[in-house]
């Protein structure tokens, strides 16, 4: 299995709260191949975001990790900030869950993408600006040339989300971790963005971890699915297995609870 792009083995995350340590992620293991998408679904508060943050060494103060996280065979867990810097945003990039608070209110959206691009790729500001405009156009931000100089609070919720996606894509990472990247998008824009991601995957071979509550989206883009509940990985398998023959009660319950647009509403 050494040719897998990304491997997580027995990842455990322990946070310290006022009342002693709590394991918020317990023995999670999964792999993501090149050009492959892993969907992570699960209860709210089950440790999905914590798993993602642990990969990049971005956990909150006082959190500890154990296990193994490898990208192309290189261990990432326990590396120092300095060692991780060239990887972050470059080899592995991340779309955060809460876009408004995840963007710096004091700088324009353009600058916040540009600084990342130039950190990894160098080049002049002018050249970077062109790249940023293209990245914004790619995620369907209308009038990108003007929008690039606006501040995050001047964007709509869904546009901010798309800014996060554009940012994550602009250095062509080998692994993209997207934490609920489409919750604020209407279904048509969502479809466009998913298409964009799929296209990118097929051309650059990017592996993707897609965290979402939208099981319909997962079923359409993921090859493998991990279901989590209060820190535990309750089910892990191919998308077809999980959706057509769920083994765990929680997964069944989740699938039953999905509101369906086609069903007659009982009123």
């Amino acid at each position, binding site marked *: 299995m050494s040719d897998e792009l990304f491997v997580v083995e027995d990842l455990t995350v322990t946070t310290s709260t006022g009342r002693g340590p709590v394991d918020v992620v317990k023995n999670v293991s999964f792999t993501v191949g090149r050009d492959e998408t892993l969907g992570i679904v699960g209860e709210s508060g089950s440790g999905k975001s914590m798993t993602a*943050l642990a990969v*990049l060494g*971005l956990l*909150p*103060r006082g959190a500890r990790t154990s296990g193994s996280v490898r990208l192309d065979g290189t261990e990432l867990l326990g590396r120092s*900030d*300095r060692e991780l*810097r*060239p*990887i*972050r*945003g*470059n080899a592995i*990039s*991340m779309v*955060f869950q*809460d876009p408004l*608070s*995840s*963007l*710096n*209110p*004091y*700088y324009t959206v353009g600058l916040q993408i540009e*600084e*990342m691009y130039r*950190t*990894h790729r160098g080049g002049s500001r002018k050249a970077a600006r062109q790249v940023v405009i293209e990245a914004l156009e790619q995620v369907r931000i209308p009038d990108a040339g003007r929008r690039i100089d606006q*501040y995050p*609070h*001047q964007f709509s919720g869904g546009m901010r989300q798309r800014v996060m996606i554009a*940012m994550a894509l602009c250095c062509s990472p080998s692994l993209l971790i997207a934490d609920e990247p489409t919750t604020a998008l209407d279904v048509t824009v969502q479809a466009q963005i998913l298409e964009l991601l799929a296209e990118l995957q097929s051309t650059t071979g990017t592996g993707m971890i897609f965290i979402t509550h939208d099981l319909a989206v997962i079923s359409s883009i993921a090859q493998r699915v991990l279901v989590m509940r209060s820190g535990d990985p309750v089910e892990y398998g191919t998308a077809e297995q999980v959706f057509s023959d769920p083994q765990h009660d929680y997964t069944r319950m989740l699938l039953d609870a999905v509101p369906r647009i086609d069903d007659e509403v009982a009123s």
Partner: protein
Amino acid sequence: MTRYVLARLGGVVVILLAVCLFTYLIFFKLSPDPAVMICGKTCTPERIDSIRSVLGLNQPILTQFGEFLRGIVAGRDYGAVHCPAPCLGYSFQTNESVWSMLTSRLPVSITVAVGAAVLWLLAGVIGGLVSAVKQGTWWDRTAMALALGGVSVPNYVLALVLQYVLVVKLQVLPFPSAPAFGDDPVLWFESYLMPWVVLAVGYACLYARLTRSNVIDTLSENYYRTARAKGLGGALIMRRHALRPALTPIATIFGMDFAGLLGGALITETVFGLNGIGKLAADSIAKNDQPVIMAVTLLAAFFVVIGNVVVDLVYTALDPRVRVVSA
């Protein structure tokens, strides 16, 4: 935006007028009769009366106040003496024009304030930043303990101790004399060094604590995490994603502190014998020299009120969320 600025300046004028009136009433009504004070020891009732009429003291208080205001704007006459605008009257003690007393001493106070501000900003911000980044280490704890102590050391104690040690005992610095910069830059610097340090210490401690807590808050912001996730590091991430958000609120506090200092550092200037506005204030209060007290008070109020407006305008420039006003 222009409309906003104009409206604010209108507000400033109203506030300054109110401060004027209030100060005027207090000093000219509640304190001893100025005519008696000017008249001195060899005084006759006739002289007092003539002084009264020259100063306009026999008129109703609001008329007097109107005259005072007119004097500032257009100048006024005291008997045969013409006091050109801006006229703040004459010192009861020395008969000097109050306006020229202010203007001759203002440069000293400004020098003291600017030098101290540079010192305390540098020390406070750098100290606070390093403490925040090294949160919980011995350096953080030592620095913060010092800062806590530093705030509570009274200015005059520090001034006297410094003066005793550096000037009297070690003789490494001259006694402050406020020479002009052009005459002797070295002496100028040596003279002002102690006042700067004395004034800066308290503020620096305060700013270090403020900076530290603001930076620590910022380091736990989601956008700082994003910046780390982007692979940023070193000076860039500190400057853009930690310091800029942390310092913006401090900039406004700084504006007010600095404006307050421009009105004179009473204790420091007095202890070091620097002829600034602060010492002028102390002297005039000691001798009950009312026109001077009045002028010094107005000047301080002026700086604070203007400082307030400048701070607001600067804040709108610094925070994009406030800056972009909708149509």
